């Protein structure tokens, strides 16, 4: 596709310096203008081939931005070749995104022309050339707008991390209470379950923790044994045999 004839043709048409194009979109627009083709119905195969030969010609095929565009063009070209069913409303034109960007870029270029002309017109007039030396090199006056400061405050406040608060439990653990309750149970029954130890189904987290610590402490003192007859089964608390007591 980049045969000698194409190279020749491109070479003749584009004797330009590298800086002539400010990017791949600029080059594409240039090609579209040269060929006088409709931007909204882009002959993608033709444009892609021209693009490749021009960047090779200009040595732009080293530049990542141009290579990326070349790859994109080839992908669109391939997608256009895929068969599609007649009357397929779902078909999305693979050129759509590129066309949108090209139109947008074209609009920017109109603005560029306008800005360029405005700058040239302004450059025809001169302001006062003479600048009196500042008396004793005063620093430039500082300008702070209260609104700017407040806007900054708002930005900053939105950044303040929520402070890490350790929630203080209002009720301390009641290990003594739990110990007394368990000792009372041990006095009247040789064996009992966790639910009895903890004081019923309405036990709070504090009760559970207090009971658990009390049980461990009593087990350590060999006042009782803790056992679990089956995996994940309920815990069984048994009064320690007298000879086991310390």
């Amino acid at each position, binding site marked *: 596709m980049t045969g000698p004839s194409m190279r020749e043709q491109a070479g003749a048409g584009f004797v330009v310096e590298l800086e002539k194009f400010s990017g791949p979109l600029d080059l594409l627009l240039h090609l579209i203008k040269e060929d006088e083709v409709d931007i909204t119905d882009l002959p993608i195969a033709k444009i892609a081939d021209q693009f490749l030969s021009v960047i090779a010609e200009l040595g732009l095929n080293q530049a990542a931005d141009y290579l990326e565009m070349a790859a994109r063009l080839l992908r669109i070209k391939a997608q256009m070749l895929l068969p599609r069913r007649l009357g397929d409303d779902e078909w999305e034109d693979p050129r759509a995104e590129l066309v949108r960007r090209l139109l947008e870029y074209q609009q920017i270029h*109109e603005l560029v022309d306008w800005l360029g002309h405005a*700058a040239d017109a*302004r450059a025809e*007039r001169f302001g006062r050339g003479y600048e009196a030396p500042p008396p004793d090199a005063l620093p430039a006056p500082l300008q702070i707008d209260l609104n700017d400061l407040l806007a900054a405050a708002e930005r900053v406040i939105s950044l303040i991390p929520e402070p890490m608060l350790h929630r203080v439990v209002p009720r301390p653990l009641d290990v003594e209470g739990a110990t007394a309750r368990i000792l009372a149970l041990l006095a009247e029954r040789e064996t009992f379950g966790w639910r009895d130890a903890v004081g019923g189904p309405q036990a709070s987290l504090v009760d559970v923790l207090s009971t658990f610590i009390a049980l461990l402490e009593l087990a350590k003192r060999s006042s009782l044994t803790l056992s679990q007859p089956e995996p994940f089964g309920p815990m069984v608390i048994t009064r320690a045999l007298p000879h086991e007591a310390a």
Partner: protein
Amino acid sequence: MHSLTKLLEAALFAASRPLTLEELASLDPGVADGAVRASLAELRAAYGDEHGVELVEIAEGWQFLTRREYGETIERAQFALRPRRLSPAALETLAIIAYRQPVGRLEVDEIRGVDSGAVIDKLVERGLIEVVTRGEGLGRPLLYGTTPSFQEILGLKNLEDLPRLEELSVALRRPTPVDEPE
């Protein structure tokens, strides 16, 4: 001329940049904005066609500039230098920033199809754009906007002087949001 008018004339002559109404009013704390405006009108009329310089409304302020027809002669005599012309890349970047401000670098890159970091740095250095705020989102990117110097080098009265997008021949109704590159 009124004495306030003469003071304004002297100040506008002394400054080598446009002065805003607020700056001019600050010269005489006792004076109302209306009086400053009236004096500016008197001054503008006093210069009219009959002088080689004229009072121009520019960059949200006022400045004396030489009349267009003498520019070339003055430049040829090398009494004053034209500012360096902006490169196409710089103009493209300026156009995007002027219309989308505040805007971040990624969006400029996306619209131009090339990396614009170096151009943006140069425009900041020339004082034509500046960081105006930081964006939301990851890394809180710097967002740029144009400065008074931008209006000054283009001879704009204010930013409303820029052509409206609707007036351009390329029919894009309004800037469509650009997808951030993946």
